[in-house]
């Protein structure tokens, strides 16, 4: 456990930050640049010194800084001190001034097993998230997790991850994480917490826990559920709730009534020819998102000439989503109209006899086409609706699926794992009522942040603050911690033992990669305390659970196997067989007249989700799909509505609902349904940490338990105030440049390249200097990005950021146009602003064979390798930036300031040691993950073997759930990348400039023209 020293070092270093939670409330200027020592205000030292006189604090200190804790810390501090000698930093309140090192740094006495210094180890674990879990394979460098990848053996990962798994790594190292137990904001000890609980416990035991409530943010851990079961025996009258703001209440409720069990549909996208999604972004916000994406794009893989039978996707949704962008026929429609639309489709199919009238001609045309297509693919089609829709819609969807014979073929129903607590919204409302009526004396909140994200009408914060005993376990001192009396820092999932069940029932052990960085506790430890066991370790609890429940013959062997595979040979959530035709549900009554009123819908943020990643720089700086907005969550409105209200992007509007009002800037988004406004959750956190506080706007106050997702009628008013929203792409159109080339399906089948695109290729030998002569190496690297399969989920951006130590620059710098991402995902709109076609295009460095950047560098800091890599030599770069000016793709990124945070000790732990951390004044860009190429090359050389095709995988390709990025040797005729480049769909971006890009694209086989070609294609 060599990591221990490092972590303790961080403890010591970070003691400065202890209790740095800001006095919340007001919106501070959202200047969230890289951390400067400025944020560590001197009064914190003062308060610590005062506390040091307290004997309890002295004890705490003693335990915190045990012997040998500062070995690694001190050289860092010393270097930092030298750095801080710079006058500018000295002005900002130097934190590096500490005693010089007193102790020696000692090398390993015993070599840890498997560990070779400089070579990483990989551990399987799983990340519980949103009622599911993704299997991960985490890279560990000398005991520090540095990169999260998907576990290819895990059915919900298949080797891929989404932005949330990637971002979770930075949360681990977040210096703002809670580090100590507090009671009413004062530092407390574990012993005193226990003492306080024992007092409470006596009272609760006497009344069987009648006034005791538990709220937990996840039900996916079998060990925790076992502990909960034991606790329920101990306190039979206590009530338990499951709270998660992005909950699937309506899905669960409707299927409970249909099937008699808590279940949700599981889609078999690979066998579906025709898919209809009603307000369901199943490629991004479903727990199956990665598996669904893989299955879905498997039917979109227009790359080989023999590919046939692509699937068709029809989407009706209020705001553009990545799923909508993949649609062949996308209908922007208000969420409240979906119910009618589903019934219209049902009527046209003949599922029900009731006639449904719909005024919107576009919607009617869509439904007509949809029904025709569905009829043609009975048993091979699939209908799905999202959690924003009421239970009745789900019942209709089920009825149509049953009528079409899809149930059991393309749609299965998977039981929901976990104790049968009430659905989140219902549960939290009940808790609110109980609290309000004084029936509750003690509330224990394990994870989650309900004070911030529970429906506003419950007024949980106010009620909790009046409760006798409240305890909150969480990663951060957040909004809920501020209201609760006791706060217990939680261990990150990479720091603690647990287990987790995915939405499909796959079960994994959550294995820690590092000893806790701060003195946190796992929820298992806390649950054990409530059971009366004070000093139990999570490791023992998890093992005990599996030992007693798994009935393995050889426990140790199976256990080790489970840890190394990352998936257990058990399935914890069974499929529910459904037979017979479904009964026709009642018709959904029309809620409003959408042609006159404005509808409001809520969506989880594609980067910060429900707000939990608000303090995560990677997530905040990730440009959201379509808007490319970073560090903000503006209200999305349609161009038509903007015109009507006479507002432009950034204008602040006041949105009024029956329950409240909100002032928020707008962002005009083509493809947004005409009279709708969509809000992303999670903005406006006020106690998230230094980065997240005051970023964006808190939309939760508009959410009520009754209407958590759709508010059919809101009033919108202009305020004449303006808020600068920061986006990374201002231009919507392609301006005739066709960066995204498209083909019709006919053109694809007949292998025709549209004539205009052919002529844009340059003559082969138009060059003054023949650089290609230098491309002599055995391997020639190249990449193909398939625009047919890219769904635009952004995971590649964060994977690249994590792999390549790319700094976060902060809102202001993004506004200045200095975002550092090496790969960006461009988006384009084509067609009418109200219902455009949506395109994504990931753009990394093209590694041009005749790279314009190389020619103009005066010092040869960027040059070409014999393997065809356009490489940057950071040490040689003097920063003229001519290379960026001459790059037609503008993929080069410049360190205009010292962007890399080299000062925060915890971030230092998270860096990839294989990649240089760039200083200010140097240019950087995509390297095709050259460090990964070299690792494989040296391994192959040592083993005296050839490099296999697919052995080298850049971070962007590895993370991609759609496998849209293929990397390999273009000199090897058998490699996949060579085959893809031989496709007639293959084209080089701006190839007419004779740059000869090594990164090429497979043209998008365009979504069919509305209504026209669909009928011909059956």
């Amino acid at each position: 456990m060599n990591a221990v020293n490092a972590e303790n070092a961080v403890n010591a270093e970070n003691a400065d930050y202890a209790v740095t939670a800001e006095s919340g409330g007001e919106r501070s200027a959202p200047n969230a640049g890289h951390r400067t020592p400025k944020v560590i205000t001197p009064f914190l030292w003062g308060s610590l010194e005062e506390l040091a006189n307290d004997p309890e604090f002295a004890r705490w200190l003693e335990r915190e800084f045990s012997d040998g804790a500062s070995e690694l810390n001190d050289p860092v501090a010393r270097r930092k001190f030298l750095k801080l000698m710079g006058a500018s930093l000295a002005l900002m309140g130097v934190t590096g001034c500490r005693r010089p090192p007193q102790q020696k740094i000692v090398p390993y006495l015993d070599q840890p097993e498997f560990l070779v210094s400089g070579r990483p180890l990989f551990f399987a674990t799983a990340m519980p998230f949103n009622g599911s879990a993704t299997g991960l394979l985490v890279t560990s460098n000398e005991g520090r997790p540095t990169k999260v990848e998907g576990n290819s053996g895990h059915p919900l990962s298949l080797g891929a991850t989404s932005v949330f798994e990637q971002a979770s790594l930075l949360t681990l190292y977040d210096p703002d994480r809670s580090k100590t137990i507090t009671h009413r904001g004062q530092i407390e000890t574990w012993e005193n917490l226990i003492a306080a609980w024992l007092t409470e416990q006596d009272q609760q035991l006497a009344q069987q826990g009648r006034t005791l409530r538990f709220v937990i943010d996840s039900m996916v851990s079998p060990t925790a559920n076992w502990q909960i079961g034991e606790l329920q025996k101990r306190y039979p009258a206590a009530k338990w709730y499951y709270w998660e703001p992005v909950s699937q209440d309506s899905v669960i409720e409707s299927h409970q009534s249909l099937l008699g069990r808590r279940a949700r549909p599981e889609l078999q996208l690979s066998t579906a020819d025709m898919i209809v999604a009603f307000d369901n972004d199943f490629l991004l916000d479903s727990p199956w998102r990665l598996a669904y994406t893989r299955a879905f794009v498997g039917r979109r893989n227009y790359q080989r000439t023999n590919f046939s039978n692509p699937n068709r996707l029809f989407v009706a949704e209020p705001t553009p989503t990545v799923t909508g962008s993949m649609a062949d026929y996308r209908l922007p429609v208000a969420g409240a109209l979906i119910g009618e639309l589903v019934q219209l489709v049902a009527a046209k199919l003949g599922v029900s006899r009731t006639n449904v009238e719909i005024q919107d001609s576009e919607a009617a045309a869509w439904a007509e086409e949809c029904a025709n297509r569905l009829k043609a693919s009975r048993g091979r089609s699939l209908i799905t609706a999202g959690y924003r829709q009421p239970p009745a819609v789900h019942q209709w969807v089920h009825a149509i699926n049953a009528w079409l014979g899809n149930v059991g073929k393309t749609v299965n129903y998977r039981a929901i794992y976990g104790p049968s607590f009430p659905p989140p919204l219902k549960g939290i409302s009940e808790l609110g009522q109980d609290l309000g009526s004084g029936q509750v004396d003690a509330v224990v909140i394990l994870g989650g942040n309900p004070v911030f994200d529970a429906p506003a009408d419950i007024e949980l914060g106010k009620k909790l603050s009046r409760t006798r005993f409240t305890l909150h376990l969480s990663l951060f001192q957040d909004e809920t911690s501020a209201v609760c009396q006791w706060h217990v820092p939680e261990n990150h999932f990479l720091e603690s033992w647990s287990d987790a069940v995915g939405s499909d029932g796959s079960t994994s052990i959550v294995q820690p990669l590092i000893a806790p960085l701060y003195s946190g506790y796992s929820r298992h430890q806390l649950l054990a305390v409530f059971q009366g066991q004070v000093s139990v370790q999570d490791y023992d609890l998890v093992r005990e659970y599996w030992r007693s429940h798994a009935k393995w013959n050889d426990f140790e062997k199976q256990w080790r196997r489970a840890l190394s595979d990352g998936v257990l040979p058990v399935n914890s959530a069974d499929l529910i067989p459904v037979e017979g035709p479904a009964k026709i549900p009642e018709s959904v009554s029309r809620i409003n007249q959408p042609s006159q009123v404005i509808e409001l819908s809520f969506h989880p943020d594609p980067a910060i989700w429900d707000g939990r990643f608000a303090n995560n720089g990677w997530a905040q700086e990730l440009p959201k799909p379509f808007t490319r907005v970073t560090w903000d969550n503006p209200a999305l409105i349609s161009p038509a509505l903007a015109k009507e209200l006479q507002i432009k992007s950034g204008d602040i509007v006041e949105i009024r609902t029956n329950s409240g009002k909100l002032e928020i800037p707008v962002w005009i988004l083509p493809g947004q349904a005409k009279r709708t406004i969509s809000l992303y959750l999670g903005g406006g956190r006020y106690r998230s940490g230094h980065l997240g506080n005051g970023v964006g706007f808190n939309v939760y106050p508009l959410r009520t338990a009754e209407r958590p997702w759709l508010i059919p009628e809101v009033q919108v008013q202009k305020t004449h105030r303006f808020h600068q929203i920061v986006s990374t792409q201002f231009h919507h159109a392609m301006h005739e440049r066709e960066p995204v080339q498209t083909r019709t399906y006919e053109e694809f089948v007949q292998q025709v390249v549209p004539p205009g695109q052919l002529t844009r290729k340059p003559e082969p030998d138009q060059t003054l200097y023949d650089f290609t002569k230098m491309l002599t190496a055995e391997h020639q690297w190249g990449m193909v990005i398939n625009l047919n399969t890219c769904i635009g989920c952004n995971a590649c951006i964060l994977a690249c950021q994590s792999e390549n130590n790319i700094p976060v620059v902060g809102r202001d710098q993004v506004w200045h146009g200095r975002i550092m991402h090496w790969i960006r995902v461009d988006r384009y709109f084509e067609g009418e602003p109200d219902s455009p076609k949506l395109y994504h295009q990931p753009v990394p460095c093209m590694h041009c064979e005749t790279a314009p950047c190389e020619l103009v560098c005066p010092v040869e800091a960027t040059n070409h390798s014999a393997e065809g890599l356009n490489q940057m030599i950071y040490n040689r770069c003097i920063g003229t930036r001519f290379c960026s000016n001459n790059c037609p793709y503008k993929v080069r990124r410049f360190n205009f300031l010292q962007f890399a945070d080299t000062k925060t000790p915890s971030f230092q732990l998270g860096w990839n040691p294989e990649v240089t951390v760039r200083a200010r004044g140097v240019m950087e860009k995509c390297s095709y993950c050259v460090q990964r190429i070299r690792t494989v090359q040296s391994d192959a050389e040592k083993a005296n073997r050839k490099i296999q095709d697919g052995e080298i995988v850049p971070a962007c390709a590895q993370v991609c759930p759609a496998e849209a990025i293929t990397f390999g040797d273009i000199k090897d005729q058998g490699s996949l990348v060579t085959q893809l480049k031989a496709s007639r769909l293959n084209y080089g971006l701006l190839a007419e400039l004779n740059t000869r890009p090594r990164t090429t694209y497979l043209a998008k086989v365009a979504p069919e023209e509305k209504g026209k070609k669909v009928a011909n294609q059956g």
Partner: protein
Amino acid sequence: MPETKLLEEEIVKSSNLPHLLVRPGETLESASAKISGIVLTGKHPPFWWVSFGIGFILLMGFLYGTIILFMIGVGIWGINIPVAWGFAIVNFVWWIGIGHAGTFISAILLLLAQKWRNSINRLAEAMTLFAVACAGMFPLLHLGRPWTFFWILPYPNTMGLWPQFRSPLVWDVFAVCTYFTVSLIFWYTGLIPDLATMRDRARTRFAKIGFGILSLGWRGSAIHWKHYQTVYLILAGLSTPLVLSVHSVVSADFAVAVLPGWHTTIFPPFFVAGAIYSGFAMVLNIMIPLRYVYRLESLITERHLNCMANVMLVTGLMVGYGYVMETFTSWYSGDIFEQYMVINRSIGPYGWVYWFLILVNIVIPQLLWIRKIRTNPVSLFFVALSINVGMWLERFVIIIVSLHRDFLPSSWGIFAPTGWDWLILFGSIGLFCSLVFLFVRFLPMIPIFEVKEIIVERQEEAA
């Protein structure tokens, strides 16, 4: 004092004789006394103190801006991706352009035997040096890591690394360094006879020793003059191609790139014409106030003003032709990127800059067709000022407007200068002004012996 009265009368009369290079009444003695007197009397009009003061304050601002720049990085400016070059390069090209007039006047006009260069060449050359000094700093200031600037130079090092000779930035270093060196030598050589005059006329010990050392033992013997004229002619011959080459090389910084708006074959002549255009404008902007303040109207006459205005008119038309041809070529190329560049330049977010540039750089200078404007110092001053602003804007349009929207619409951006950008621009003007006024204070700003030559010639003609 009848003599003085006579002189004044003659001056009044001669104002109707704008073709004269030296007004009647100037004698060998009076010319020497007038020019050397500015330096040697040690008394300076309030104008000098105020102008130098302003220049010096701006210079201090420049120093402050530079220190902050070195400490924090080029991120204090408004540059970004895609506009990675901003004010620093605009200023560089502008200053280097201004630095063209001196050598043009001194060398090319000397070879062309244009006598009207004689009174103005010293000031123009000094101005050239100072402008090139200002220009030369910007490529260093704009570096991300300025402390590594010498890596651009071909010097032997332990790693055996040379600069990348295909990069125009390397050519720039050679071109600008050569130009500065030759200009300096040329200017100093031209100064030597006058430094000797100053030494002889100096009254303080300090001035005597100082000018004595600087004049390198010049005694005015026939041999000295013979050597002097040979050297001066050789240097003029050397400088002449440099006038054309420097800005051609600078234009290659842009023409070599693939960027629409930069990738143009017209750039070298277009840049040279623009450089001479702005150089003459700057000479006039400096000379007209000095001429007035130091009562040098009899030595820098309307004839000089007129000649310089004519040069500006011609080069201005060349620049105008360049604008027309750029637009035409873009349209004629049939290339969507080139065509969009022209459209964006004229009606994009910076369209107003372009049209303002056309106004101040092309439309207003057409006033120079009018002789009265050319010979009136006040009107000429303002036209020259307009040209200087215009030429700065031209570089802004070429560099920033071309960069901000290039090939892929996804990477288009916008550039907004920060306070630091402006501080360093005006600071560099402060540096320039400070140097000019120090020059006026310590060295003869008009070549005494060359003016005397004209006086002698005239006397001989009269005789």
